[in-house]
């Protein structure tokens, strides 16, 4: 090894040590700070996946905007889906601070190269799904995201603070939709239980693979991009929901769900990881439809974006000429 290379290696490892020290002292990393390439890449992957999830996640709920049963519900649902669009925007912007453009990220999504949360590959079949999504899916998202408000990367953490505030509002609204249904007639109660039955396991899977099958967890925790493991968060989610479902007079579709006095937690049944993998690999009930809807919206909008750009350019030429 030449002396020059040796010095470079020494220097970069010193910088790297300094970086980890900052993280350990809970000093936020900002866009212009030095960061290891792997940290940057991990963040880009995580934040863009999260942004895509917000955007694809608009679709299953947008399905029911035109069929919402009251004007108030209609307005609330539009506002909710609009919030998700806003979340997508904040997250794309915070990923952009890491040197990747929104266009690149969206292209990756449309080409099937970037992932988004698998939960949105399930269909919304009844109105009760608007309740179940709010309660369980936004609920699981909150569990995952509240710790991210303390993530080491500043722009990400700040985006998450704003997002979490809105997500907990969504969760309450969703629960309230189910609560009304649970007090309704036979058909409404059936709708309510059916939606819980269909959304429960996919929501439990939202926390990702078990810890022993989650290779990135340890490094992400060292970098404080992640604060708790998948299984810790999942357990917390199950504990909360097992209590809340009682208020609905409904049940979670898990015969093994039982309070464990010794652990002070609920035990729950085995997760169908086969289903999880299939949906991630594109074989969920709506993978094709969701992506196709995003691609179509983008393609149909191409002439609009081009025209807006052309008009802006003409305007600036006209201004210069004037």
């Amino acid at each position: 090894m030449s002396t020059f290379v040796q010095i470079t290696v020494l220097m970069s490892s010193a910088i790297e040590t300094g970086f980890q020290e900052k993280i350990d002292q809970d000093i936020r990393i900002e866009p212009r700070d030095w960061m290891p390439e792997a940290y940057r890449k991990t963040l880009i992957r995580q934040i863009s996946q999260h942004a895509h999830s917000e955007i694809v996640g608009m679709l299953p709920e947008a399905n029911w905007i035109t069929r919402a049963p009251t004007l108030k519900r209609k307005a609330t649902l539009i506002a909710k889906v609009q919030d998700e669009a806003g979340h997508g925007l904040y997250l794309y912007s915070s990923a952009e601070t890491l040197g990747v453009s929104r266009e690149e990220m969206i292209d990756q999504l449309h080409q099937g190269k970037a992932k988004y949360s698998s939960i949105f590959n399930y269909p919304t079949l009844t109105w009760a799904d608007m309740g179940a999504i709010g309660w369980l899916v936004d609920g699981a998202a909150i569990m995952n995201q509240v710790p991210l408000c303390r993530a080491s990367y500043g722009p990400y953490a700040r985006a998450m603070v704003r997002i979490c505030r809105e997500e907990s509002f969504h969760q309450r609204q969703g629960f309230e939709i189910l609560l009304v249904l649970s007090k309704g007639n036979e058909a409404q109660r059936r709708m309510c239980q059916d939606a819980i039955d269909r959304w429960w396991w996919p929501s439990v899977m939202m926390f990702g693979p078990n810890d022993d099958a989650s290779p990135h967890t340890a490094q992400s925790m060292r970098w404080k991009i992640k604060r708790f493991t998948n299984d810790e968060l999942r357990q917390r989610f199950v504990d909360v929901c097992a209590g809340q479902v009682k208020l609905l007079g409904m049940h979670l579709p898990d015969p093994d769900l039982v309070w464990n006095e010794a652990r002070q937690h609920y035990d729950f049944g085995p997760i169908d990881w086969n289903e999880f993998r299939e949906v991630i690999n594109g074989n969920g009930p709506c993978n094709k439809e969701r992506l196709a809807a995003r691609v179509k919206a983008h393609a149909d909008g191409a002439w609009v974006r081009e025209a807006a750009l052309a008009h802006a350019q003409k305007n600036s030429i006209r201004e210069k000429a004037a």
Partner: protein
Amino acid sequence: MSDQSIIDYILHLGDNALVLGHRNSEWTGHGPILEQDIALSNIALDLIGQARYYYQYASRCINAADGASRPFPGHEALTEDVLAYHRDAWDFRNCLLVEQSNGHWGKTVLRQFFFSAWQFELYGALRHSRDSQLAAIAAKSLKEVTYHLRWSGEWVIRLGDGTEESHTRMEEALGDLWKYTGELFVPADYEKPLALSGVAVDLATIRPAWELKVGEVLEAAGLERKEGEWMQKGGKQGKHTEALGYLLAEMQFLQRAYPGCEW
């Protein structure tokens, strides 16, 4: 002036807002740019909010009327949702313009522009209505409509001026929609006595300002409107285009399939 004419007039104002709000909300999640998806959803929310004010007011009027003359006898106490979800197309009093399908983004923004230019002038005048409820709703909504008008007008100019393709698409949209603008200024039977008594807006008084605004924006967009084209009408009297039936079938599905439920 009968009770029925004021009720019809309120419903006309509310139905315009609901039907266009509903149409706009069909875009939510499918807009051409994220920021604009949010903007159009906002307009949908504003319009649905306005519709709710009108329906709440209409249901108070109807509930106060004596039993025999009340429409919708099946419903004991009328609510905004009975009005939105339990009337058939022939009871809707919206103008034909707002029920037209979204088509492409250009058609949607042009439809919004024609309507907002009208609503802007209408609310400006309705603020001085002798009916204090209508005056209050108009005053409250005018700020929203001012934004809708600016936003949609900017889009019409952008797309008319932008590229050859966008210009062609806007010409096509103009061809589709212009024939529905005449109805905005034709008073319905229930409207005439109300305009005379200062409750409703006399549409002839707001037409010049609308023409001026529309002329300015179309000119800036490089779009030419056709003179002397036949104007369709009927919506304000409950004679709609085929589009409304499908819209209502979708919108009213749950209330119709499971009547008498809380949601």
